[in-house]
């Protein structure tokens, strides 16, 4: 119990090229919880994901983000990862000449001390098991990192990394975009396999569809660069059925994007 992860985001403001996108995000995620952030395009959802991971283009102008009480914002990108944060990216980079398996092994060993590296046999066993669950052909292990992967293959590969690296808190940034229903089920099964007290997740999505397969404990609506409404799984269902207009009406929001806010 003492080892439950905790991510605490307090009044987070983030700018890109000096334009403020996030305008005071507050959120707390604990081990055992799955949170979903939903919202129309252009409301800043992905910015939250990138800023937490430390994307070079995003600048935090105000606020805090603590992972297990440690100041995330003070860490380099690799330190955040080693502290237990993971981001499944919407547009993962392609890296030529570096195989999937070599990269994953480097990443796993980066978290371990020298002399305590994962054995090759154990690594291969783990990777085989997880690739099977994700219905990935074994040749993906020796292919170059994301190079020439289709959109769906990249998403599966992100989930493979998630499962292999076993983070404390994972953010999934529109992992469902571009996936057909079968792929969606596979990806969801991967995430569900991670569930437990020592794992918390934040799922960012446009659509309720994914949430049919990964049941969230909390649902938040994102507009104008912050969370404007929170609730349980029933909120996602209502959004799917009725869209976002009723939320805007209820809160008196005319333009939900961050675009017009200047």
């Amino acid at each position, binding site marked *: 119990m003492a080892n439950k992860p905790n991510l605490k985001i307090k009044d987070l403001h983030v700018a890109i090229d000096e334009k403020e996108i996030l305008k005071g995000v507050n959120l707390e995620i604990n081990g055992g919880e799955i949170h979903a952030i939903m919202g129309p395009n252009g409301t800043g959802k992905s910015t939250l994901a990138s800023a937490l991971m430390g994307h070079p283009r995003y600048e935090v102008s105000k606020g805090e983000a603590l992972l297990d009480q440690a100041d995330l914002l003070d860490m380099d990108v690799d330190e955040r990862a080693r502290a237990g944060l993971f981001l499944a990216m919407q547009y993962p980079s392609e890296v*030529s*000449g570096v195989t999937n398996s070599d990269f994953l092994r480097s990443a796993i060993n980066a978290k371990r001390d020298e002399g305590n590296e994962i054995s090759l046999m154990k690594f291969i066993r783990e990777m085989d098991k997880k690739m099977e669950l994700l219905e990935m052909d074994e040749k993906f292990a020796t292919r170059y990192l994301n190079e020439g992967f289709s959109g769906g293959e990249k998403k599966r590969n992100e989930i493979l990394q998630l499962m292999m690296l076993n983070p404390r808190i994972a953010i999934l940034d529109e992992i469902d975009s571009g996936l057909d229903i079968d792929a969606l089920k596979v990806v969801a099964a991967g995430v569900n396999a991670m569930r437990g007290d020592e794992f918390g997740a934040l799922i960012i999505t446009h659509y309720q569809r994914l949430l049919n397969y990964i049941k969230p404990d909390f649902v938040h609506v994102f507009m104008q660069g912050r969370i404007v409404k929170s609730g349980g799984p029933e909120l996602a269902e209502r959004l799917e059925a009725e869209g976002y207009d009723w939320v805007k009406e209820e809160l008196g929001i005319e333009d939900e994007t961050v675009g017009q806010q200047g």
Partner: protein
Amino acid sequence: MNMVNQTSMDDKRVTQYAQSRQEPKWLLEKRLDALSQIEELALPQLEKTNINNWNFTKFDAFKEEEAITALQELPSEFSAFVFDQETANVVVQKNASSVFQQFDPQIADKGVIFSDLHTALREHEELVKSYMMSSKMKRDEHKLAAIHQALFNGGVFLYVPKNVELTIPFQSLFYGQGKDAAILPYIMIVTEENARVEFIANFVADKSDEVAMHNGMIDVFVGSNANVRVSTMNNLNQTAVDVLYRRSYVGRDGQLEWITSELSDGRIISDNTTHLVEDGGTVNVKAVILGAGETRSNITTNIRHWGKHTNSDIHARSVMKDAATNILNSITKIEKDASKSDGQQTGKVLMLNPKARGDANPILLIDENDVTAGHAASVGRVDPLQMYYLMSRGVSKEQAEKLIIYGFLDAVISDIPSEALQKRIHEVIEGKFQS
């Protein structure tokens, strides 16, 4: 050029060295003729690289060394370049002396000749002479060629007769050690019709920064339908000037493959010129270049298509770190009447640090209509989004950079057929990241 070192560039010293090796008279005359021209000849014209202040002349070309009886006697930093040591067919030269050679007598029985150049000159003078005289490298081409012709201090002669196909590579190691030391090997590889052979040359120096010079020369003659692969690995120290001119002829339907690893730390001039003189010849060049510290390098691959249906492909990848600079030239010239020929080239430079510089110059010169050709060139810095992605999985900045560089060079290295050579290249690269 007032810095001419009289200890080497002197009629008497040259004559003495040639006589100590029992060189034939015609060769000594060639040497002295070249020697007399050094002063007046100009340095080669190199694209975008100013070499006027590089040291090409101050060194001792004739440092004599003791022979050894086993490879194990070599310092491990040098012997590491020779693989499969028990069975290796290998020639080792230290400074101006051939110090070790090993050659499977069963291969010799097939008519293959493999020895240091002077031994070959003594035992097969006419054969060596005929190829020396038909070399494409002319001693009056420029000052560096004349210096080599006048002062070459060893080398290798490899001859593979008709229809002999060899699967085990022939190896050679040329190393310099000591103050003002210099290696000036003259390597000749000759294959007759339908022959097959692989040759590896390592040019290395003691890293103690005293070695001054490598001025090497490789002549390759690929016979009709012969198949030849030559790998060069240059790994000299920071104060050395590393010059290597390669000149190849490819006969009808012959195939030549070059694998060149330019990993020296000082000043580098590398020229690799292949003439596809007859129909159906092919040359593939794979080049790996890694510069660190203050390395300056000018790497030129030059292909001349003369015959019809000739094919060439150049794939060069260069990584520059620290304040290193690389000029990467690829020149493909398809002559008139070399119809149905194809020339391709790719040159890519990746720069790691703001002070690192690179320049890729792809040049296609085509005098015939009925040909195909293409080139791709790029110069860029490490992509910050790739770095972000790799680091987001927990690998450190240094490790992420290394992954990207290895990945970048892998496009060439993974194509190298010899695993031992791949491993050796990786080890030398690894060493550059530890210093």
